[in-house]
């Protein structure tokens, strides 16, 4: 028991351990909730709800009524759980820190400008969500949840992800790639 608690508190697990656990979580989630993991869809549910509040007419369409219904969905609740789970994990392992730039590598390459980092987060996130909308899911909702069901879409998505990501990293990092 004590070793188990200590293991829960270690700052880092091997990606193979993490992957195995997430695979098991996917199996249990499908068995007990008939659902699989997802993340990007929840932002669309929340976005739809906000749009309904501001301009109900604009939100009254196929997309937010049927494809990605607005409201407090299963996915939104899961997203809340993801935030809390990661927070507790970081707090217990003692790696939790308040930072305006979340990573040392960013500072080394792109400098300490906070706005530069936040702009990259903002515009990068728009592309992420837009791309996920076109493809039909994100790394969790499509690549992992589709992948565990051997859906061809998941593997096409992952191929596209690297085709987009590698040149972007090359352009951003230039000689330091």
């Amino acid at each position, binding site marked *: 028991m004590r070793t188990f608690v200590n293991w829960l508190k270690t700052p880092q697990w091997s*990606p193979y351990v993490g992957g*195995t656990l997430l*695979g098991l979580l996917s199996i249990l*989630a499908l068995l007990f909730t008939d659902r699989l993991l997802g993340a990007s869809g929840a932002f669309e549910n929340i976005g739809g709800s906000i749009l309904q509040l501001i301009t109900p007419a604009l939100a009254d369409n196929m997309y937010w009524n049927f494809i990605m219904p607005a409201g407090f969905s299963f996915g939104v609740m899961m997203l809340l*759980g993801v935030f*809390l789970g990661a927070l507790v994990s970081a707090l217990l392992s003692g790696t939790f820190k308040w930072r305006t730039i979340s990573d040392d590598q*960013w500072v080394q390459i792109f400098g300490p400008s906070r706005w530069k980092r936040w702009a990259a987060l903002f515009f990068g996130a728009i592309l*992420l969500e837009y791309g996920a909308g076109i493809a039909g899911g994100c790394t969790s909702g499509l690549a992992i949840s589709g*992948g565990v069901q051997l859906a061809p879409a998941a593997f096409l998505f992952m191929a596209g992800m690297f085709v987009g990501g590698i040149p*972007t990293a090359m352009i951003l990092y230039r000689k330091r790639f």
Partner: protein
Amino acid sequence: MTALLPALFVGLVFGWILQKSRLTQYSTIVNVFRFTDMSVLKFMLTTIVVGAGGIYLLKDLGLVTLTGTTPTYIVGNLIGGLIFGVGMAWAGF
């Protein structure tokens, strides 16, 4: 609201695993595209191998039904993934 409690629980474990595997870090995400840290790929493919094995076993035993997966739409899946990859390398999510 109580119907959503399993979702909260699944999310908690999901977030915990992501944090422990350093997938919440900018450097882990971007370095897979620089080939300097392949954690993202190791993590995702391990998940798929373990998850697919278990899910198809349970499916053949008649214990689970697959969720309606995302339809195969080659251009959409690829182009969507491509745009997603640009955002991923830029923002580091």
